[in-house]
């Protein structure tokens, strides 16, 4: 397992749980730059070029917040690596110098879709949420790697409604608690959570638009290839309240780790968590379709790894 992979379970966890498991990350940036940077940026740019209407959407009232989000993101790129990124802030705009790509981009304060510009320089999917009528709405996004949802369909939709299809989301008022948490988010204290699922194949683009292309992979999972084919797919999700516009910047960095890369205690942990998962969640996460070969693979691996008694 690569050291940069955000393993989503705590050491003690043995069962699946519904909860708001976000934790504060004061002082941390809204983005990461890792060794997949060039590869992922070029994939994002290819997708947005081919399918602009599904990868970028915005409502006109978000332009000011988009600029604030873009500037924050550019500043965080510099914080992450001063050797590779620098920024010149002028009145009414900024210029980002990206030495990895040997590019520079200028963003003006009232230029419109600034998220579209900065999104070309980060591996993350970027989403802007704004608050009105006591609810949080998804009003803009540069999203290439959604896990089974459509940015376009969800545009302008309230938070609670977006999550209606998620099994267990209303369990014991979880949905209301998360909405309250988001509304209470403060600019001084950003938060992070890790959202995990399993996927067949390492393809990052799991958009609803292309579901018939990537879903086929699930039928190809066997006990012999599961270790290489099935991936622990983890989204590092970060939430930042923007101090000026009060919009929320939500960044998602998607990571994969093949099951073969997990060592014995982690395989055992994953096996137990999967065993405890409710049927509707297994179905929602798309695991039911290859549950049998996956289970067989995990059981074999557990048999090999177990200490002789």
């Amino acid at each position, binding site marked *: 397992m690569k050291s940069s992979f955000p393993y989503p379970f705590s050491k003690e966890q043995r069962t699946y749980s519904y909860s708001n498991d976000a934790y504060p990350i004061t002082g941390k940036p809204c983005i990461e730059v890792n060794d997949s940077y060039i590869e992922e940026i070029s994939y994002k740019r290819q997708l947005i070029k081919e399918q602009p209407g599904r990868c970028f959407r915005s409502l006109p009232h978000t332009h000011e917040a988009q600029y604030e989000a873009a500037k924050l993101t550019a500043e965080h790129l510099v914080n992450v690596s001063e050797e590779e990124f620098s920024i010149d802030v002028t009145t009414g705009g900024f210029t980002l110098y990206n030495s990895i790509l040997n590019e520079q981009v200028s963003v003006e304060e009232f230029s419109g879709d600034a998220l579209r510009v900065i999104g070309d320089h980060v591996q993350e999917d970027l989403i802007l949420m704004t608050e009105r009528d006591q609810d949080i709405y998804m009003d803009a996004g540069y999203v290439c790697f959604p896990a089974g949802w459509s940015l376009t369909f969800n545009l302008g*939709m309230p938070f609670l*409604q977006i999550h209606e299809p998620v099994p267990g989301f209303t369990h014991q008022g979880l949905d209301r608690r998360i909405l309250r948490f988001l509304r209470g988010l403060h600019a001084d204290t950003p938060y992070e959570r890790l959202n995990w699922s399993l996927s067949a194949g390492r393809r990052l683009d799991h958009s609803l638009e292309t579901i*018939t292309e990537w879903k086929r992979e699930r039928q190809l999972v066997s006990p012999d290839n599961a270790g290489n084919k099935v991936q622990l797919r983890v989204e590092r999700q970060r939430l930042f309240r923007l101090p000026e516009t009060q919009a929320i910047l939500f960044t998602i960095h998607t990571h994969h780790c093949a099951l073969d890369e997990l060592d014995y205690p982690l395989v055992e942990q994953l096996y137990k968590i999967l065993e405890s998962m409710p049927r509707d969640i297994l179905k929602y996460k798309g695991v039911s379709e290859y549950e049998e070969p996956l289970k067989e693979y995990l059981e074999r691996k557990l048999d090999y790894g177990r200490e002789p008694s």
Partner: protein
Amino acid sequence: MNSFHFAAGHLRYLLIFDSKGAEPAASLRNSLINEGAEFKELYAGSGRDLKWISEEISSQKNGTCLYAALETGLLEKLETAAVCAGYLPEEIQFIPSGSRRRIFCAHCHHISITDCENPPVQCSSCGRYLKVSGSRSGYWQAYLAVDREAF
């Protein structure tokens, strides 16, 4: 058909329905009576057009919550009329009566008005056969529909 979600805490409620919307209307009426809510109901039978409905909704006092179970085409126009009359998004709930729906194709983003009684429905732009979900966008005023091969 979907049912209305009774949103407590509004000053009063206005319920408008046609013959095909009688079922969700009856269920909501029960909730309103049980909660002791102040409400008015209007039956939009034949001859009751958008103009009549728009005048009714405009004449209501502030703080009224609007529930309508009407034919899809009429709801689209009513949404605009309700917003112009000053209703807030959280004060409006619509359910299409009958089986005609505005559907949003997840694959090509085309919106078509289709009779959903005999699934699957076909996208009139990309030609895919789609399964219509219960997820509705107020922004697109349409239900999400996904290729039936995805299930």
